[in-house]
Protein backbone atom coordinates (compact mmCIF):
# COMPACT_ATOMS: atom_id res chain seq x y z
CA UNK A 1 0.00 0.00 0.00
CA UNK A 2 1.15 3.49 -0.85
CA UNK A 3 0.29 6.33 1.52
CA UNK A 4 0.42 9.88 0.15
CA UNK A 5 0.13 13.14 2.08
CA UNK A 6 -1.10 16.41 0.63
CA UNK A 7 -2.07 19.63 2.35
CA UNK A 8 -5.27 21.05 0.87
CA UNK A 9 -6.89 24.07 2.51
CA UNK A 10 -6.55 23.35 6.21
CA UNK A 11 -6.77 19.59 5.82
CA UNK A 12 -4.11 16.96 5.58
CA UNK A 13 -5.34 14.65 2.84
CA UNK A 14 -3.95 11.15 3.23
CA UNK A 15 -4.30 9.02 0.12
CA UNK A 16 -4.52 5.28 0.73
CA UNK A 17 -3.61 3.41 -2.43
CA UNK A 18 -3.72 -0.35 -2.85
CA UNK A 19 -4.41 -3.10 -0.35
CA UNK A 20 -4.81 -2.52 3.35
CA UNK A 21 -4.33 -6.14 4.39
CA UNK A 22 -2.49 -8.12 7.04
CA UNK A 23 0.76 -7.98 5.07
CA UNK A 24 0.67 -4.19 4.75
CA UNK A 25 -0.83 -3.42 8.14
CA UNK A 26 2.34 -2.91 10.18
CA UNK A 27 3.88 -0.42 7.75
CA UNK A 28 0.62 1.50 7.32
CA UNK A 29 0.04 1.62 11.07
CA UNK A 30 3.53 3.05 11.54
CA UNK A 31 2.90 5.74 8.94
CA UNK A 32 -0.49 6.61 10.39
CA UNK A 33 0.90 6.90 13.91
CA UNK A 34 3.64 9.13 12.56
CA UNK A 35 0.97 11.37 11.01
CA UNK A 36 -1.01 11.44 14.27
CA UNK A 37 2.12 12.39 16.19
CA UNK A 38 2.42 15.50 14.00
CA UNK A 39 -0.75 16.70 15.70
CA UNK A 40 -2.88 17.33 12.65
CA UNK A 41 -6.40 18.13 13.76
CA UNK A 42 -8.12 17.90 10.38
CA UNK A 43 -7.48 14.78 8.36
CA UNK A 44 -9.20 13.34 5.30
CA UNK A 45 -8.47 9.78 4.28
CA UNK A 46 -8.96 9.56 0.54
CA UNK A 47 -9.77 5.92 -0.20
CA UNK A 48 -10.26 6.32 -3.93
CA UNK A 49 -7.50 3.88 -4.80
CA UNK A 50 -7.91 1.54 -1.85
CA UNK A 51 -9.23 -1.64 -3.38
CA UNK A 52 -9.05 -4.02 -0.44
CA UNK A 53 -9.35 -3.92 3.32
CA UNK A 54 -9.35 -6.66 5.95
CA UNK A 55 -9.77 -6.57 9.73
CA UNK A 56 -6.08 -5.61 10.07
CA UNK A 57 -6.82 -2.46 8.10
CA UNK A 58 -10.09 -1.70 9.89
CA UNK A 59 -8.16 -1.97 13.15
CA UNK A 60 -5.79 0.81 12.05
CA UNK A 61 -8.63 3.08 10.96
CA UNK A 62 -10.30 2.61 14.34
CA UNK A 63 -7.05 3.52 16.12
CA UNK A 64 -6.84 6.71 14.05
CA UNK A 65 -10.48 7.59 14.76
CA UNK A 66 -10.04 7.07 18.50
CA UNK A 67 -6.91 9.23 18.56
CA UNK A 68 -8.57 12.01 16.57
CA UNK A 69 -11.56 11.93 18.87
CA UNK A 70 -9.30 12.19 21.90
CA UNK A 71 -7.86 15.48 20.59
CA UNK A 72 -11.27 16.71 19.36
CA UNK A 73 -9.94 16.54 15.82
CA UNK A 74 -11.84 15.99 12.59
CA UNK A 75 -11.45 12.81 10.58
CA UNK A 76 -13.30 12.21 7.35
CA UNK A 77 -13.16 9.41 4.83
CA UNK A 78 -14.04 9.82 1.19
CA UNK A 79 -14.22 7.97 -2.12
CA UNK A 80 -14.89 4.51 -0.71
CA UNK A 81 -15.22 1.90 -3.42
CA UNK A 82 -18.53 -0.02 -3.25
CA UNK A 83 -16.88 -3.25 -2.06
CA UNK A 84 -15.09 -1.35 0.71
CA UNK A 85 -18.28 0.49 1.67
CA UNK A 86 -19.93 -2.91 2.07
CA UNK A 87 -17.25 -4.02 4.55
CA UNK A 88 -17.76 -0.77 6.47
CA UNK A 89 -21.50 -1.43 6.56
CA UNK A 90 -21.27 -5.00 7.86
CA UNK A 91 -18.67 -4.13 10.50
CA UNK A 92 -20.59 -1.12 11.81
CA UNK A 93 -17.76 1.18 10.72
CA UNK A 94 -20.13 3.25 8.57
CA UNK A 95 -21.61 4.57 11.78
CA UNK A 96 -18.37 5.51 13.51
CA UNK A 97 -16.78 7.40 10.61
CA UNK A 98 -17.83 10.45 8.67
CA UNK A 99 -17.89 9.16 5.11
CA UNK A 100 -18.25 11.52 2.16
CA UNK A 101 -18.76 10.59 -1.48
CA UNK A 102 -15.75 12.53 -2.79
CA UNK A 103 -12.82 14.72 -1.82
CA UNK A 104 -14.51 17.93 -2.90
CA UNK A 105 -17.40 17.30 -0.53
CA UNK A 106 -15.05 16.24 2.25
CA UNK A 107 -13.09 19.49 1.96
CA UNK A 108 -16.22 21.59 2.43
CA UNK A 109 -17.14 22.78 5.91
Amino acid at each position, binding site marked *: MNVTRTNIDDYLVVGLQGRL*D*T*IQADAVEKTMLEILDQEHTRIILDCKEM*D*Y*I*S*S*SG*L*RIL*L*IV*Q*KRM*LAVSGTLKLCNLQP*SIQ*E*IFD*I*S*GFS*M*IFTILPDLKTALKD
Partner: protein
Amino acid sequence: MMENDDQTYTLKLSNQLGELGRLQEALESLPETMDLPPTLVMPLNLAMEEAFTNIVNYAFDDDNPHTIEVSITKHERELVISIVDDGRPYNPTLKEDPDIDLPVEDRKIGGLGIFLIKKIMDDVAYRRENEKNILMLTKKLTQ
Protein backbone atom coordinates in the same frame (compact mmCIF):
# COMPACT_ATOMS: atom_id res chain seq x y z
CA MET B 1 -24.58 -29.78 -23.38
CA MET B 2 -23.72 -27.88 -20.23
CA GLU B 3 -20.96 -29.30 -18.14
CA ASN B 4 -22.08 -29.74 -14.52
CA ASP B 5 -19.06 -31.43 -13.03
CA ASP B 6 -17.92 -29.72 -9.84
CA GLN B 7 -14.63 -27.95 -10.20
CA THR B 8 -12.11 -27.98 -7.37
CA TYR B 9 -9.02 -25.89 -6.86
CA THR B 10 -6.61 -26.94 -4.14
CA LEU B 11 -3.83 -24.90 -2.61
CA LYS B 12 -1.31 -25.96 0.00
CA LEU B 13 0.00 -23.08 2.05
CA SER B 14 2.65 -23.05 4.73
CA ASN B 15 1.88 -21.39 8.07
CA GLN B 16 3.40 -18.02 7.22
CA LEU B 17 1.58 -14.76 6.64
CA GLY B 18 3.66 -14.25 3.49
CA GLU B 19 1.52 -16.95 1.90
CA LEU B 20 -1.38 -14.50 1.75
CA GLY B 21 0.06 -13.34 -1.57
CA ARG B 22 -0.39 -16.81 -3.07
CA LEU B 23 -3.89 -16.98 -1.66
CA GLN B 24 -4.71 -13.65 -3.27
CA GLU B 25 -3.33 -14.77 -6.63
CA ALA B 26 -5.35 -17.96 -6.51
CA LEU B 27 -8.55 -16.07 -5.73
CA GLU B 28 -7.94 -13.51 -8.43
CA SER B 29 -7.70 -16.29 -11.00
CA LEU B 30 -11.12 -17.72 -10.06
CA PRO B 31 -13.35 -15.50 -12.22
CA GLU B 32 -11.55 -16.90 -15.23
CA THR B 33 -10.89 -20.50 -14.21
CA MET B 34 -14.22 -21.10 -12.49
CA ASP B 35 -16.33 -18.52 -14.25
CA LEU B 36 -17.16 -16.67 -11.05
CA PRO B 37 -18.32 -13.04 -10.82
CA PRO B 38 -15.26 -10.77 -10.28
CA THR B 39 -17.15 -8.97 -7.51
CA LEU B 40 -16.81 -12.12 -5.40
CA VAL B 41 -13.01 -11.93 -5.30
CA MET B 42 -12.71 -9.19 -2.69
CA PRO B 43 -15.17 -10.64 -0.12
CA LEU B 44 -13.81 -14.17 -0.58
CA ASN B 45 -10.26 -12.91 -0.22
CA LEU B 46 -11.23 -11.08 2.93
CA ALA B 47 -12.96 -14.10 4.50
CA MET B 48 -10.03 -16.34 3.68
CA GLU B 49 -7.41 -13.86 4.82
CA GLU B 50 -9.15 -13.68 8.21
CA ALA B 51 -9.38 -17.47 8.51
CA PHE B 52 -5.81 -18.07 7.35
CA THR B 53 -4.32 -15.32 9.52
CA ASN B 54 -6.08 -16.69 12.60
CA ILE B 55 -4.68 -20.14 11.97
CA VAL B 56 -1.13 -18.88 11.38
CA ASN B 57 -1.21 -16.63 14.44
CA TYR B 58 -2.96 -18.86 16.95
CA ALA B 59 -3.19 -22.53 15.92
CA PHE B 60 0.32 -23.78 16.44
CA ASP B 61 2.16 -24.24 19.69
CA ASP B 62 5.46 -25.29 18.11
CA ASP B 63 7.87 -23.72 15.62
CA ASN B 64 7.61 -26.53 13.09
CA PRO B 65 6.37 -25.86 9.59
CA HIS B 66 2.73 -26.79 9.04
CA THR B 67 0.60 -27.09 5.93
CA ILE B 68 -2.75 -25.39 5.66
CA GLU B 69 -4.79 -26.88 2.88
CA VAL B 70 -7.35 -24.79 1.09
CA SER B 71 -9.85 -26.32 -1.34
CA ILE B 72 -12.30 -24.30 -3.34
CA THR B 73 -15.12 -26.22 -4.98
CA LYS B 74 -17.67 -24.74 -7.29
CA HIS B 75 -20.98 -26.52 -7.23
CA GLU B 76 -23.94 -25.56 -9.35
CA ARG B 77 -25.38 -23.08 -6.87
CA GLU B 78 -22.68 -22.55 -4.30
CA LEU B 79 -19.00 -22.21 -3.73
CA VAL B 80 -17.58 -24.27 -0.88
CA ILE B 81 -14.20 -23.50 0.60
CA SER B 82 -12.54 -25.80 3.08
CA ILE B 83 -9.56 -24.77 5.17
CA VAL B 84 -7.78 -27.59 6.98
CA ASP B 85 -5.01 -27.28 9.55
CA ASP B 86 -3.37 -29.58 12.07
CA GLY B 87 -3.18 -27.04 14.85
CA ARG B 88 -4.79 -27.22 18.24
CA PRO B 89 -8.59 -27.61 18.28
CA TYR B 90 -10.34 -24.32 17.74
CA ASN B 91 -13.92 -23.71 16.71
CA PRO B 92 -14.19 -20.14 15.42
CA THR B 93 -17.96 -20.38 15.00
CA LEU B 94 -18.28 -20.29 18.80
CA LYS B 95 -16.56 -16.93 19.11
CA GLU B 96 -18.91 -14.26 20.36
CA ASP B 97 -19.76 -11.51 17.87
CA PRO B 98 -18.51 -8.01 18.64
CA ASP B 99 -21.12 -5.36 19.40
CA ILE B 100 -21.01 -3.28 16.24
CA ASP B 101 -23.54 -0.73 17.50
CA LEU B 102 -21.22 0.69 20.13
CA PRO B 103 -20.01 4.28 19.76
CA VAL B 104 -16.39 4.67 18.66
CA GLU B 105 -15.11 5.31 22.21
CA ASP B 106 -16.34 1.90 23.29
CA ARG B 107 -15.49 -0.11 20.19
CA LYS B 108 -12.71 -2.58 20.86
CA ILE B 109 -9.62 -2.53 18.69
CA GLY B 110 -9.57 -5.84 16.84
CA GLY B 111 -11.73 -8.94 17.14
CA LEU B 112 -13.53 -8.39 13.84
CA GLY B 113 -11.97 -11.16 11.75
CA ILE B 114 -14.26 -14.08 12.48
CA PHE B 115 -17.29 -11.81 12.55
CA LEU B 116 -16.46 -10.63 9.01
CA ILE B 117 -16.17 -14.24 7.83
CA LYS B 118 -19.63 -14.99 9.23
CA LYS B 119 -21.15 -11.89 7.63
CA ILE B 120 -19.59 -12.45 4.22
CA MET B 121 -20.24 -16.16 3.87
CA ASP B 122 -23.69 -17.73 3.81
CA ASP B 123 -22.62 -20.59 6.02
CA VAL B 124 -19.64 -21.27 8.28
CA ALA B 125 -19.22 -24.75 9.73
CA TYR B 126 -16.48 -26.31 11.80
CA ARG B 127 -15.56 -29.86 12.65
CA ARG B 128 -12.58 -31.62 14.18
CA GLU B 129 -11.55 -34.77 12.37
CA ASN B 130 -8.40 -36.89 12.54
CA GLU B 131 -6.62 -34.32 14.71
CA LYS B 132 -7.42 -31.60 12.20
CA ASN B 133 -9.52 -28.46 12.21
CA ILE B 134 -11.80 -28.32 9.20
CA LEU B 135 -13.50 -25.03 8.49
CA MET B 136 -16.10 -25.02 5.72
CA LEU B 137 -17.15 -21.70 4.23
CA THR B 138 -20.09 -21.62 1.83
CA LYS B 139 -21.10 -18.80 -0.48
CA LYS B 140 -24.28 -19.06 -2.52
CA LEU B 141 -23.95 -18.28 -6.18
CA THR B 142 -26.73 -16.31 -7.72
CA GLN B 143 -27.07 -16.49 -11.44
